[in-house]
């Protein structure tokens, strides 16, 4: 049994040949690079390392799922962000892992040709394709404020959702409505889940979201044929389970009370905490500090570059709370390092002190008893003129 691990893989049964079959997978990665990538995906989601093998298996053996990607009210930032992922590269993603059959930005075809291909895929892979929505969905006046191919976006979404195996809303606009849903919301923009009542929509909020959170979710769906664990806002917990404040590299400055007071001041140049500039890190759940952006390594994320977090992954924060407004610090409970109002202080009785005190007590009682024993009941006899001893 010791060779069977929690991912259900019997290592002993994996032969060198089997591993060799990974050579050249995903757009010409070496076996080593490929396995590193899959293990990385597993690590991103907090899965055991061995799950990487299952992901690797799924990546090359499973049928590539068709993906239909719809754009609503948005800036295409999410796609742009996706285009800048390097492991795998975009082409490996859309050609080897998934089959990106419809994507308004990336489609080779255009106009009626593209729409016809989309309908064809929807019919052919009914119940098997993945629907990704990017951007808010206007609903006011029949959703006429965003039309593709002469049809309101909202109808495209509802239509595509019918036969989708899974629905992913990428970016804050698709997840919560985003900037166009902010007050006064002239187009009646809504989140994808709001126009698809009764359907499970996996939200990958962010402006833009980290591409690896999306990729990992897709790989999870592919490998385990079910969505990863989600929080109450339907965000994958592996990516949105922790406060930015908890993993922020500037956190020690917060704890020590060192704040940048305005952009470019001494504290800002020193890399102090940005809380006073309106950083929403203390109320925003996302893995930005640990994963970073653009594959640049440590510190490549908004707070790392000196800009306060604006809370894009939070429904009520990004685009809704003023940029300068202070965050509600949502640490679950205050750190234990705070002294309690009634913390015990002062040194109590030490054994040595108790011994000394007891010794003194004993000495007094002993001496007094001895003295009393030695003295007569009455000393009157000694008062006699001849001064006899008692």
């Amino acid at each position, binding site marked *: 049994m010791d060779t069977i691990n929690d991912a259900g893989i019997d290592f002993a049964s994996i032969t060198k040949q089997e591993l060799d079959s990974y050579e050249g997978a995903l757009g010409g990665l070496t076996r080593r690079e490929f396995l590193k990538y899959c293990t990385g995906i597993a690590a991103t989601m907090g899965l055991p390392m061995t799950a990487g093998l299952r992901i690797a298996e799924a990546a090359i053996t499973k049928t590539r799922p068709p993906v239909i990607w719809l754009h609503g009210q948005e800036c295409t930032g999410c796609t742009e962000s996706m285009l800048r992922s390097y492991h795998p590269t975009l082409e490996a993603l859309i050609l080897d892992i998934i089959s990106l059959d419809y994507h308004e930005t990336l489609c080779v075809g255009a106009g009626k040709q593209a729409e016809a291909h989309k309908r064809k895929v929807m019919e052919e892979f009914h119940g098997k394709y993945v629907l990704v929505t990017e951007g808010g969905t206007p609903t006011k006046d029949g959703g006429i404020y965003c039309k593709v191919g002469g049809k309101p976006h909202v109808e495209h979404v509802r239509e595509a959702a019918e036969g989708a195996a899974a629905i992913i809303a990428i970016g804050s606009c698709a997840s919560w409505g985003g900037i166009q849903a902010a007050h006064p919301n002239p187009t009646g923009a809504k989140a994808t889940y709001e126009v698809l009542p009764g359907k499970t929509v996996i939200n990958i909020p962010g402006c833009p979201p980290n591409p690896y959170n999306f990729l990992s979710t897709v790989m999870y769906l592919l490998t385990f044929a079910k969505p990863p664990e989600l929080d109450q806002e339907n965000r994958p917990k592996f990516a949105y389970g922790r406060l930015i404040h908890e993993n922020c590299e500037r956190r020690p400055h917060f*704890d020590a009370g060192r*704040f940048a007071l305005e952009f470019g001041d001494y504290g800002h140049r020193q890399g102090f905490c940005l809380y006073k500039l309106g950083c929403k890190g203390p109320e925003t759940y996302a893995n930005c500090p640990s994963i970073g952006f653009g594959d640049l390594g440590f510190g490549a994320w908004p707070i790392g570059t000196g800009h306060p977090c604006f809370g894009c992954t939070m429904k009520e924060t990004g685009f809704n709370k003023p940029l300068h407004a202070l965050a509600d610090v949502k640490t679950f409970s205050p750190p234990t390092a705070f002294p309690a109002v009634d913390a015990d202080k002062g040194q109590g009785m030490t054994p040595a002190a108790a011994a000394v005190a007891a010794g003194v007590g004993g000495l007094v009682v002993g001496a007094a008893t001895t003295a009393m024993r030695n003295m007569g009941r009455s000393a009157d006899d000694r008062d006699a003129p001849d001064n006899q001893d008692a």
Partner: protein
Amino acid sequence: MDKSRRRFIQGAAGAIAGAVAPMESAKALRRENKQLPPNALGMLYDSTLCIGCRACVTACKDANDVPVEQPAHLRDWNVGVWDSGEDISGKTLNSIRVFTHGTKEHKDHAENGYAFVKRHCLHCVDPSCVSVCPVSAMLKDGDTGIVTHNPDACIGCRYCVYGCPFGVPQFQFDEPFGKIAKCQFCEHLQKQDEIPACCDVCPTGASLFGRVDDLQKEAEQRLAKQPGDRYDFPRGRLGDDRPTHEAAIPEYESHIYGVKEAGGTQIRYLTGIPHEKLGLPKLPDESYAALSEGVQHTLYKGMIAPLALLGGLIYLARRSTKQHEDEE
């Protein structure tokens, strides 16, 4: 019963006649509470705004040049690591402490919640420390009402530490030439037209500096609003042009702590949970200094009573010694 004994008892009884009168007589002995100075300066600490960042603790240490401190249980292995002590001490003039209950889920809730509280000198209107100091080392400014300490006068008797109802003055016990440490409201910064360091750095305006009258109005204004109303919380000095901090009015306890406690203080506390839970003791409206000084002044007024007593004693002693001279 022999005569001398009876006379002695009578004398003793005479000396303590009326001793059994109820506490009413204590009230008669008490002098009036002192009044708030004309330009009293103070602080409004709003516990619901405090996020526990401890910027004030750090700023205070910088401004007053006191060293960092570790909690006692970490001191041995955590040498040099920044942390805060358990309470104000000889090396820490202010401290952010926490009240917790149960799951500690909700801020400013007494049940399953937590709340922060800042601890430092309250600059009493009628301070015990000033009243008890034998060498005038504790001084209350007649104009601003700030209570300061003069280590050159201090003999280190620590009566101020013992007598302060809030436990504020602290002695540096671990120094061979220790002194009393207490918040002096960054008097040295105020002289340079700056404000106390803790109020200066507070990111949310939880510590707000200003004139006591204005702060009182501000506190009352906050209480008058409905919970949930948007409110612009000032930061730094009340009335300054610093940007405000907009947030919802929380559910306040209706009692503003520090207005009447122990004869009144120059600090105002607004809290979301009962102040006793935050280590702010329940105190009467009369200052304790008023009672102790009242008794002392009654007994020693113009030294008349002691001198009269001395006169009587001299007469009696003279009479007795004369007799003894004959004896000896």
